[in-house]
C-alpha cells in the first residue's frame, strides 16, 4: 500500500525530508531548471477559465503564487475557492493552464505529477470536513506520509508524533478521532497532514474562518512560524482582510470570477484602487469606528455586460455599462476599473 507511489526522488530509502526536492527525481524534469521561485518552482494560473457544467465561475484569471505569500480575497461566489481547487489540480481548467515549475499540470506524467502532489498541499476551512471522521488523527497523517515516503511502522509513528509537536499538538492526540478534539486542534492536525509531505506551497482556503477569534490568532501564529521555519509559500484564500495583511505580500481581489485588482497587499488594502476593494474594506466592522457599510448593493447580481461590478458601484458611469474595463497598471498595481485614478484620489469616499 505504501508502495503505490513512485519511489522517493532521491532514489534512497533514507527518509530524510531535507534531502528531498519535490519534482526533481530522475526523469521527472528532463534538463530544465525551475523558473525561479524556490526549488520547487512556481505555481501559476495562466488565463484560466473554470466552469461547472455550463456555468463559468472563473474567467481567464492569471495569478502567480510568489514568495512572501499571495492573498486571494473576494466575497462568497467570487470564484476564489474554485480557482484554488484548480491550482491544487482538483479541477481541470476549461481553458488556460495551471503550471508548476513551468510545466502544465495537465501535461504532467505520473512521476512529475507525484512531485507536484508532494509540493502543493491544501489546508481547508473546516478541519471536521478535511479529516476523515472515521480515522484517527495519527492515521490521517500517516496516510500522507505513506503517500510520499517509504517508512516502516516505527519511523512513521515517530514522524507523526514529530509533526503533531511541530503544529503545537500533544502527540497523544494521534489516537483521537476528529470529533474528539477541538476545532483548533483539528485544524492543526490538518496542517500537520499537509506538512507531512514536506510541501513548498500551501493553499490555505479560509484556514481560520471556522475558528474562534482567539484560536484564529494562534493558528495564524503557527502559520507564520511554519512559513519562516520551513520556507513555505502561501496562497491564502479568505474574506478576512486582516489575515491577508498579516500573511501576504501580494493580494488579488476577485469579483464575479475575475481578478479586479492585484498589487502589494498592504497598499492595496490601505488605499484601494478598485471600488470593490474599497467596499470590501469598508464592510469590515471596527470597534468604535463608523458602522460598516455593505459592499455596495450586495443584492445586485453581477452585470452580464460592461463592468460586472457596475450595478453595485457608486462611481458607475455610462462607459461602465458599455465597455468592460480591461486590467491595466495603475500606480504599482493592476486594476480593472475605468475610474481607478479617481478611486485612489478618494472619489468613492464621501
Amino acid at each position, binding site marked *: 500500500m505504501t508502495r503505490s507511489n513512485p519511489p522517493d526522488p532521491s532514489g534512497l530509502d533514507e527518509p530524510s525530508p531535507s534531502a528531498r526536492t519535490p519534482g526533481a527525481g530522475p526523469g521527472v524534469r528532463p534538463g530544465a531548471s525551475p523558473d525561479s521561485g524556490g526549488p520547487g518552482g512556481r505555481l501559476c494560473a495562466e488565463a484560466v477559465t473554470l466552469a461547472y457544467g455550463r456555468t463559468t465561475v472563473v474567467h481567464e484569471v492569471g495569478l502567480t503564487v510568489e514568495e512572501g505569500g499571495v492573498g486571494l480575497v473576494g466575497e462568497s461566489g467570487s470564484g476564489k475557492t474554485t480557482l484554488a481547487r484548480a491550482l491544487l489540480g*482538483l479541477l481541470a481548467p476549461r481553458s488556460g493552464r495551471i503550471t508548476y515549475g513551468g510545466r502544465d499540470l495537465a501535461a504532467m506524467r505520473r512521476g512529475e505529477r507525484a512531485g507536484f502532489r508532494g509540493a502543493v498541499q*491544501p489546508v481547508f476551512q473546516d478541519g471536521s470536513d478535511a479529516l476523515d471522521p*472515521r480515522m484517527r488523527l495519527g492515521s*490521517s497523517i500517516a496516510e500522507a506520509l505513506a*503517500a510520499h515516503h517509504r517508512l516502516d511502522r516505527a519511523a512513521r509513528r515517530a514522524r507523526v508524533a514529530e509533526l503533531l509537536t511541530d503544529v503545537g499538538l500533544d502527540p497523544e492526540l494521534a489516537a483521537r478521532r476528529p470529533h474528539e478534539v477541538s476545532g483548533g486542534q483539528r485544524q492543526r492536525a490538518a496542517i500537520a*497532514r499537509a506538512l507531512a509531505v514536506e510541501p513548498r506551497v500551501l493553499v490555505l482556503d479560509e484556514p481560520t474562518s471556522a475558528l474562534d477569534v482567539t484560536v484564529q490568532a494562534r493558528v495564524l501564529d503557527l502559520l507564520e512560524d511554519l512559513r519562516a521555519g520551513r520556507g513555505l509559500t502561501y496562497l491564502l484564500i479568505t474574506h478576512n482582510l486582516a489575515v491577508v495583511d498579516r500573511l501576504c505580500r501580494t493580494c488579488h481581489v476577485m469579483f464575479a470570477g475575475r481578478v479586479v485588482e492585484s498589487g502589494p497587499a498592504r497598499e492595496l488594502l490601505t488605499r484601494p484602487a478598485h471600488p470593490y476593494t474599497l467596499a470590501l474594506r469598508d464592510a469590515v466592522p471596527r470597534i468604535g469606528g463608523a458602522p460598516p457599510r455593505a459592499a455596495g448593493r450586495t443584492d445586485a447580481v453581477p452585470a452580464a455586460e460592461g463592468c460586472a461590478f457596475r450595478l453595485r458601484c457608486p462611481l458607475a458611469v455610462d462607459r461602465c455599462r458599455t465597455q468592460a474595463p480591461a486590467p491595466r497598471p495603475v500606480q504599482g498595481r493592476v486594476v480593472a476599473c475605468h475610474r481607478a485614478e479617481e478611486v485612489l484620489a478618494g472619489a468613492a469616499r464621501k
Partner: protein
Amino acid sequence: MTTLALRRTPLRRLGDLARADVLAAVGLVVLVLIVLAALLAPWIAPYPDDGGAATHPAEALLPPGGDHWFGTDQVGRDVLSRVLFGARTSLFIAAAVLVVAAVAGVALGVVAGYAGGWARDVIMRITDVFLAFPALLLSLALAVVLQPSVTTVVVAIAVTWWPWYARLTASVAASVGRRGYIDAARCLGVPAPLIIVRHVLPNSLTPVLVQLSLDGGGVILTAAALSYLGLGAHEPTAEWGLMVEQGQTLFTTDWWVVTFPGLAILVTAFAFNVLGEGLRASLDPHRRPR
C-alpha cells in the same frame, strides 16, 4: 447524543438504540431469538427428524397439545419442529440474498458515485433497467426459468435487490466524494481505488446497514412467496412459505398447519422492520430527541 451515536461502533450503537427505542429493542431481541432457534434447531426441536422427510401417518393432523405444541401436519410431522427448521431456510435465504445484493450493489454503487461521469452513467442505466421491472415479476420469471430450489430463490431475489443498493450507495458515495477529506487525499496523490476503499466506502456504509435491516423482512416475504408459488424450496425442505402453501386448504378444518408458519413469517418480517426503522430513526440527524 444523536451525533455521538453516529460515531460509535456498531455494537455500541445497537446498545444505545435499545435504550432509546423500545420497539426497536423488541425487534432486536426477537431477531436474536429467531437466529438462535435457527442455529440450534437440531437440538431444540422436539422431533428433529420431522424437519426433513420423516412421516408418521398415524399422527397426521393432530391439533396442538402436550406432545405437539403446534400440532402436526398431513403426514404427521411436528409443526413446531418444522417451523424451527424453517427458520434456518428463511434466514439462510435472507442472509444470502442480502449479502449478494449488498456486495454487488455497494461495489458498483460506490464506483459509480465516486467516479461520476460515464462510469456512473453506465452503471446507473443498468440499474434502471433492472428497476424498470416489478421486482416480484422479475424474480418469478427467473425462478420459472431455473430449477426450483433454495439457490434459485436466492439468485432470483438477489437479482432484483442489488440495484437498490447500487442506487443508494451511489448517492451516498457521491456526497462523500465532495467532502474535504477526499480532496485532501487526492491532493496527497492517493490512488483512486485506495481512496474508494479507505475513505469513500467506510463513510458510505451507514445507510446501507439501515437498508439491510429494513430489507430482511422483505426478502423473507418474497422468498416465502416464491416457495408458496412452488418456485422455491420444495418437499421435504422445511420452508415457511411452502408450509403455508401446503396447509392453506386445511385452514378451515386444521388451522394450525398453516397458522404457525404464517405467524413465523409475520413475526420475523415485523422484527426486521421495527429494527430497521429504529436504526434509521436513530441515525437520522434531523430527528428531534425524544
